């Protein structure tokens, strides 16, 4: 078991690989926060697996962009709720680039309705994609990380969950669940150098929030939505060597909304 040297931020992959022997996996990375995160991790030198459900074009364009910049990106068609597809994604990355040492559980969906009218399908789909899939990916990633005595798991939660948002009981439940899971898993594996954290974005300009009103934005202290890059920067930090003493916590990225 080697102890690979870690260099400073910003080093590109290619001639030399500054990070540990292994790779990163970002789920739902064809666009939005996932795509920005994939770019950020690739810029750190991580070969990065990019899973997508339907947006093959977006994922391949992103991979091409990353490779043009000197990074390594592997677009993989895998619905996070499909256990076989996710196992194949892990197996492929392990075969091509070594253990997945950075896992970003980012894939998420919405299916809003007030609770009195929210049907089973809408509830289950959101909880399965946003929470259950994150658990399964976490479980799969943990053993090699434990063995490597190093790992970074970052769960993309939300300010919704800890706080209410009308019409999103399913989303809130899944995201709050993600935060609870983050804490317990973090404590279980901390002594092996594996950290597990969450980021909780507020309103961020992505497909998931394209229908948010101007009124809502006005209620944000920063008076604007965040950008995917602003959230990715936080994920990049949590995935870094430097964040080695940060675990079991949630980094809120919301322009002051929940302060």
């Amino acid at each position, binding site marked *: 078991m080697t102890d690979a040297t870690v260099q400073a931020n910003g080093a590109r992959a290619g001639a030399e690989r500054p990070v540990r022997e292994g790779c990163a996996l970002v789920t739902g990375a064809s666009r939005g926060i996932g795509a920005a995160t994939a770019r950020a991790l690739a810029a750190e030198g991580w070969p990065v697996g990019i899973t997508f459900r339907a947006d093959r074009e977006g994922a391949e364009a992103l991979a091409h962009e990353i490779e043009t910049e000197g990074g390594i990106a592997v677009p993989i068609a895998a619905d996070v709720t499909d256990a076989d597809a996710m196992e194949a994604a892990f197996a492929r990355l392990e075969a091509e680039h070594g253990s997945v040492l950075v896992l970003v559980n980012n894939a998420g969906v919405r299916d809003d309705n007030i609770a009195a009218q929210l049907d089973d399908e809408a509830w289950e789909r959101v909880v399965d994609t946003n929470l259950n899939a994150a658990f399964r990916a976490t479980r799969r990633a943990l*053993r090699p990380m434990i063995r490597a005595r190093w790992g970074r798991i970052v769960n993309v939660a939300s300010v919704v969950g800890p706080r209410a948002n009308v019409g999103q009981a399913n989303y809130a439940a899944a995201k709050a669940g993600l935060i609870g899971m983050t804490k317990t898993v973090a404590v279980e594996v901390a002594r092996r150098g594996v950290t597990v954290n969450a980021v909780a974005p507020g309103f961020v300009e992505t497909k998931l929030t394209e229908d948010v009103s101007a009124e809502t934005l006005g209620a944000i202290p920063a008076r604007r939505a965040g950008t995917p890059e602003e959230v990715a920067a936080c994920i990049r930090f949590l995935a870094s060597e430097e964040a080695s003493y940060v675990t079991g916590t949630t980094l809120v990225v919301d322009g002051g909304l929940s302060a």
Partner: protein
Amino acid sequence: MTTKATDEAVQKVIFDGLAEVGADPDRINRDATFEELDVDSLDVVELAQIVEDEFGVRLEGDDLKGLETVGQVIDLVVERAS
């Protein structure tokens, strides 16, 4: 590439693995329990990964739950590999 899971080979890998996760080498033997060796469930997870890396045998959640002694783990791995 995996190693052939003979009783002898599995015992060696598991004994070495236990020492690696912190068990006192002088107290490791087939009859020892994980509790006696001060090896907890997280250590056992790591041991399972060592076994998988070496022999290609995957021990899942339920497999590990009932195991108390070192010998039981060795026997299970040999059985699974055959």
